[in-house]
């Protein structure tokens, strides 16, 4: 089980590294998203086996029924993590996923703004933007440019 997960993590990291090294910003963004998934899977893999010791049966979820809860509370179960899965890594992953969503939204909107204002998403062409050009506030002009382009291209910019 851990081995399968480890291979998944390795492949995902590899693919995201490949995408991140590309010359296309869309690919770079996808690489960043995949990197987040790889990190989450790595946390899952680091949290220990989901199987009970020496058997095919799975451990129980941390929040399941009231009797188990009561046993946990009065300390009947000496080592709870041998019978239930560790809830902390899952909480970490949940938090990381939520943050990943926000980051994804930001990065995608940055891509949209860039393609509108620079007109390209290829790194080689982005590098053509001159170092000494004044950094004018594009938000003020972008709406007009947007409208103009829409009119020129007949509805679909």
């Amino acid at each position, binding site marked *: 089980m851990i081995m399968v997960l480890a291979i998944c993590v390795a492949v995902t990291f590899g693919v995201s590294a490949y995408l*991140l090294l590309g010359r296309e*910003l869309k690919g*770079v963004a996808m690489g*960043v998203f995949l*990197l*987040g998934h*790889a*990190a*989450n899977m*790595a*946390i*899952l893999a*680091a*949290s*220990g086996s989901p199987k009970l010791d020496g058997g095919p049966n799975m451990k129980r979820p941390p929040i399941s029924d009231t009797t188990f*809860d009561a046993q*946990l*509370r*009065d*300390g009947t179960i*000496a*080592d*709870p*993590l*041998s019978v239930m899965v*560790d809830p*902390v*890594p899952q909480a*970490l992953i949940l*938090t*990381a996923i939520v*943050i990943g969503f*926000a*980051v994804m939204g*930001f*990065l995608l909107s*940055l891509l949209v*703004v*860039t393609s509108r*204002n*620079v007109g390209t998403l290829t790194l080689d062409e*982005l*590098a053509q*933007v*001159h*170092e000494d*050009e*004044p*950094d*004018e*506030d*594009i*938000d*003020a002009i972008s709406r007009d440019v947007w409208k103009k382009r829409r009119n020129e291209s007949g509805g679909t910019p």
Partner: protein
Amino acid sequence: MTNRWIVLMVVLPMLTGALSVPVVRRMRLSRAIGLVGMSATLAASLLLLWQTVAGSEGRGALVSQMGQWDAPMGITLVFDTFSGMLMVAAAFVFLCGYLASFGELKPTLERRYFHPLLHFMHAGVNLSFLTGDLFNLFVAFEIMLMASYGLVCLAAGRKRLVHAYKYVVLNLLASALFVTSAGLVYGMFGTLNLADLMRIVGTAVDYGDALPDGFVAVSVLLLTVFGLKAAVFPLFFWLPDAYPTLPTPLLAIFGGVLTKVGIYVLARTFPPIFMVGEAGDVVGPMLLFAAVVTMLLAGVMAVAYRKLRGGLCMMVLVGVGFSVAGVAVGGNVGLSGVAFYASQSMIAAALAFVLCGKLEAHTGADHLDDPHFGGLWREVPWLAVFSFVAFVTLVGLPPLSGFYGKLWIIQAALGGDETSNPNTWVGFAALLTGAITLLAVLRWWTSAFWLGSEHGRTSRDNARPGSRSLSAALGLLLAASITLGLFAQPFLTLAQNAGDRLASPAGYIEAVLNPIDFETPRLANTLSHAQPHPPKPEAHH
């Protein structure tokens, strides 16, 4: 010692940010809210810092357990002398930068959620300084970074957008690595609480137990992450690209505060946790090498820069090099030096950037070879004097504040302290860097103020008088910087306290884990159970 109020350091900026969201289109109102909120944060940080050192012995660290879940289980916030000094300096720099922004930013930019983003970034910075938990540190970083991404891209032109990608993508990469290594740390030690990690690693070293497999790898991963935030040698190239495109007030805040968060985390986690045992043999030399190359390279580049903004960014990197060298050398003296140097260099860097903005406004140019520069001392003698003071503070010459931190760091490196691991060539590299940076700032200063320009001053067509708010921020920062230099003794005492607490983590551990009567489980047996702390039964109520 428990103190519930330290959470104010995060709550106040958060609240200010939330309040300024609905009034974002009404500039005066959001400015008023922001000023009140930032002043309150500064006042709270000063009060809390006073609390940590009040009394004869001082109360050490103020600790707050969120939701009363005791230390290794819940989220812990810790306010000790080191984080307190940095938080006071950060709150001050934020306030000054905010003040400067009133006259400097275009209204379109200001209405576009500038105020909330800045307050949220402040909350993220403070949470990074406060948190006593590795994963919560990740969350704090993300709050800070999300807001900073927004600020970097706010009303950006084409050039700034293109440079923003380096900043954003590199930081996202670092965040993914951080999450991974936090998960791995949890897998190894069964805890993410920094005090608990210090305790476990410290006990393992005391008993001669082997640290878990892969500990060195995780240490190197975390070094990469924090090194990128702090902008040390192989990972610093995003900073001189992304920062100089920012408007002056933001530049002062970013350049002053953000790299210090990385330095704080390195100083807090590396000497007691990730530089212990075999990890120290790998990470220690890496950190020393990175620090030395950072300072030398940035110093040489500072000499080469003819754009004042770029050159000042290089001076920020030189400061990063000094601080990281202090962390790597360690010991009471070295870490006291880091505490003092990092907090004073926030103010010094912000001062230099605000001055740079003032100069650019006055001349309408940003390149020192521009005919508008040169011989300015006749026109604005006070600006020449202020610039000299600011530049000399950055370099760290004796009467001014940059000197003391550097002195301690170099002393520790040259072996003036038995608790550190001295490294003579680091000390000499630091001295050499001092000379190089002095050359750099003197070159800037002479070509801006002293030497007359050959072709005669041309008329300044795009010069602005420079706003009053920028001057106010300049005055505040200058006063603070000079006070730190000329009346340094109380601040040095504070820094010594901070360094002592950093060098010997027992006080920190005791302050955080005190509520628990732990019978120290040794690492060897804990690892066989894969979980050192059976959950405390009472905690489930």
